[in-house]
């Protein structure tokens, strides 16, 4: 057996030998290539990339401190203040640039957390049969039928002034159910496949079958669900802030809208105060949705070659 000594065989349950790791990396980069080759997704990636760069380098890019109230109030766009100043005398452009941080942070954190919950619940719900499945189904349906925004408002009002963490928590609690439902139906179709039965015959236990056999086969669906959840989180965060349910002292696009509304920006002719953060929210949500077109092409190859040849 000397010839086989140099071959690594997993004995601890981890399957990634050196060769498997490289092939996994190769398939990952191929997947990225598929997403990039989709025109819509490319636009989305570029927009998202710009926002991320702006958020990271906000202190370098912003001309002033966003909370500096020392400027003249309600200024129109000038050379010193490209988008004017607020009713409190802050620079709008600086606020806009720093606001990107909050939106991206909340979108990422709330999106990832609610997707994690959706994966855990959706997959076990799809794999289970009988009474347990009914119980999970009841809970998920409960969250689905309660209207999201009112529930968010109630929870947010109850946890007064919890700041950004509270907002993330509220979005996660109200946002996981839809993803769980989508992932469950895919799990149900995969659990009928022979390789799942074969894993049972190999002596695997249920959690391992769910997370090692089934889960890797739905990666693109989970990524799609992540982008969807992040989009919803960004919109929900802006909505809650706009309604004044968050911490109105932090600088985010939502609070900018809140203050602009409070100071009747439209009546004073300062449309940029409402328009700029609104456009940014829309663009960020749009970029994630566009990326999802590319992710769809990963899970459904027919969407890739459709237009290439006649």
């Amino acid at each position, binding site marked *: *057996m000397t*010839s*086989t000594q140099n*071959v690594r*065989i*997993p*004995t601890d*349950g981890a*399957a990634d*030998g050196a*060769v*498997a790791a490289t*092939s996994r990396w190769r398939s990952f980069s*191929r997947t990225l*290539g*598929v997403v990039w*080759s989709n025109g819509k997704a490319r636009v989305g990636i570029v927009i998202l990339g710009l926002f991320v760069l702006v958020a990271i380098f906000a202190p370098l890019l912003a001309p002033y401190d966003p909370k500096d109230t020392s400027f003249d109030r309600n200024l129109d766009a000038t050379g010193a203040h490209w988008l004017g100043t607020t009713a409190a005398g802050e620079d709008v452009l600086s606020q806009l640039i720093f606001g990107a941080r909050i939106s991206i942070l909340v979108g990422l954190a709330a999106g990832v957390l609610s997707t994690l919950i959706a994966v855990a619940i959706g997959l076990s719900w799809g794999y289970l049969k009988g009474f347990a499945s009914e119980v999970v189904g009841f809970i998920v349906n409960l969250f689905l039928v309660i209207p999201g925004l009112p529930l968010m408002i109630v929870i947010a009002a109850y946890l007064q002034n919890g700041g950004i963490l509270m907002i993330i928590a509220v979005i996660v609690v109200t946002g996981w159910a839809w993803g769980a439902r989508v992932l469950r139906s895919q799990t149900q179709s995969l659990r009928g*496949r*022979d*390789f799942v*039965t*074969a*894993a*049972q*015959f*190999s*002596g*695997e236990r249920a959690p391992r079958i769910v997370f090692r*056999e089934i889960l*890797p*086969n739905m990666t693109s669906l989970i990524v799609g669900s992540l982008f969807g959840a992040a989009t919803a989180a960004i919109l929900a965060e802006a909505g809650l802030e706009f309604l004044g349910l968050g911490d109105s002292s932090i600088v985010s696009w939502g609070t900018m809208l809140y203050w602009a509304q409070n100071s009747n920006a439209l009546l004073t002719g300062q449309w940029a105060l409402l328009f700029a953060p609104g456009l940014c929210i829309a663009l960020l949500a749009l970029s994630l949705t566009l990326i999802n077109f590319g992710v769809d092409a990963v899970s459904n190859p027919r969407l*890739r*070659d*459709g*237009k*290439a*040849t*006649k």
Partner: protein
Amino acid sequence: MTSTNPKRDRADGDVLLDVRDLSVIYESAGAAPVQAVDDVSFTLKRGEFVGLVGESGSGKSTLGFALTRLQKPPARTNGGNIFFDGSDIRELDTETLRTQRQGGFAMVLQSGMNALNPVRTIRNHFMDIFRAHGHVAKADREARAAELVRKVELDPSVLARYPGELSGGMRQRVSIALALSLEPQLMVFDEPTTALDVLVQHAVMDTIQSLQASENFTAILISHDLGIVLEATQRVLVMHEGRIVEDGASRDILERPQDDYTRMLLSHYADPRAEVVELPGFPARRSGAEPGTTRPRAEAGDAAVVTRSVRSADSAIVVDGVSKVYPPPRRGEKPVRALDDVSFTLEPGQSLALVGASGSGKSTLAKLITGIEKPTQGDVRFGDVDVTRLRAKGLRDLRSNVQMVFQDPYSALNPLHTVEYTLSRPIRNMTDLRGDDARARLHDLLTTVGLTPTETFAQKLPHQLSGGQRQRVVIARALASDPQVLIADEPVSMLDVSLRAGVLALLEDLREKWGVSLLYITHDLLSARLVTDDIMVLHDGKVVERGVTSEVLRNPQDEYTVRLLDAVPNPRRLREDVA
């Protein structure tokens, strides 16, 4: 033959389809282009019935799709011409293409039975076509639809029904009738019977043959099964790796095959009823009547003890008076009785064939034995263990002794795991081997199933393996826990003919060397004859016949067994009929 049919005589020499140097290429983004059809030329005379045979990946379906202009990207015709009735169909624009489907060419697909719209009645389907082409006067449409349905041997009452209310065979007949409704000059049948049950397959093929004779359309029958094609058609084109390697009259191909590939395909057919059955890679199997040819049971048992000294005693599987009733599929219907009072014993080292058409309950029986489902009545025992009462832990123990080989090697392996991972899991879960021992075991398994060099194969992902290699991995996984019983559910039905013999020989070999007992579930009596000693024929959940395989197949007593035997495609039977 031509002189018997005046219609065909007149048409003789009249070329309907002329394919010249046709090439079709698949160009997917991010993958090397594949030349699926490579420089193919042939002509078809009016009224001819031609078979197009090849194994999977030979380009036969691609060619069929190119001929009817139904191909979709990434496939692209990159050379040659297709002249249909004098005009090049590659030049047609989409509207001319649509209108010429009436009186032009039509295609019947393998999944044609799933091509019917579930929310529209069969009558609606016919009316849609008549309306789109307007070739039947409004008043005559109803009568015409009834006539067409009768042509495919269905009762006109099916017109009022929905696709979901018809069986697979009936739906495939409807889709043939729909294709006929446009009075095509050329019909392309792409594996029209592959998705159907064996017995139904036979009946549908008969219908196609008699229709072709009575309607006198030109037809191409695409199939992977040389047996079926030789029985049905007058001329056969054999396709291999995108090229046509042989083109000749059916009789000539059968008696004087010119190409090695054709010879190889032909060599895999045999009559399960014959005295001696021989396939490439298999020792000749004689009938049990001759002394010393059936394997003595005791010998197999001995071998088991020698190679598997680890285990103390082998246990038999005892199925005792088992019935299984499923709840009715729809309200108001009767419950489905899948199994009815079935009893048998699978002794250690024995190989038993479980034979029947789909719906006969053979797969249900496999589920009961492996504890996936519980019987409604009766007992399933493995040694002292009552399989019907096992919970999760007990089932895991049972499965280290009773393992399963799946029908479809393409779905039985997780596409994301390497062979090494797939095989290492049962070794870890069901044996005490760890580290170097487990590694050695893994390579032993791969050697046993003939996947050498083992280092290379261990690192492969399923999509890098052929169907036959995948099925070998599935078998290796089943062997990993050193089971006493192997349940093989149609293990070769999804494989190409040329790969079947290899997998069957492997199963046979394992039984001899490892002393595994084998429950071989199949509808294919030829393979049952090759790998099993005993046979049990199931029909509608009841055992209708049982005994020594060779004797049952040579002198079948039950009418159902005879029908199954007749459904085995066998080109040589044709030769005997003629002689």
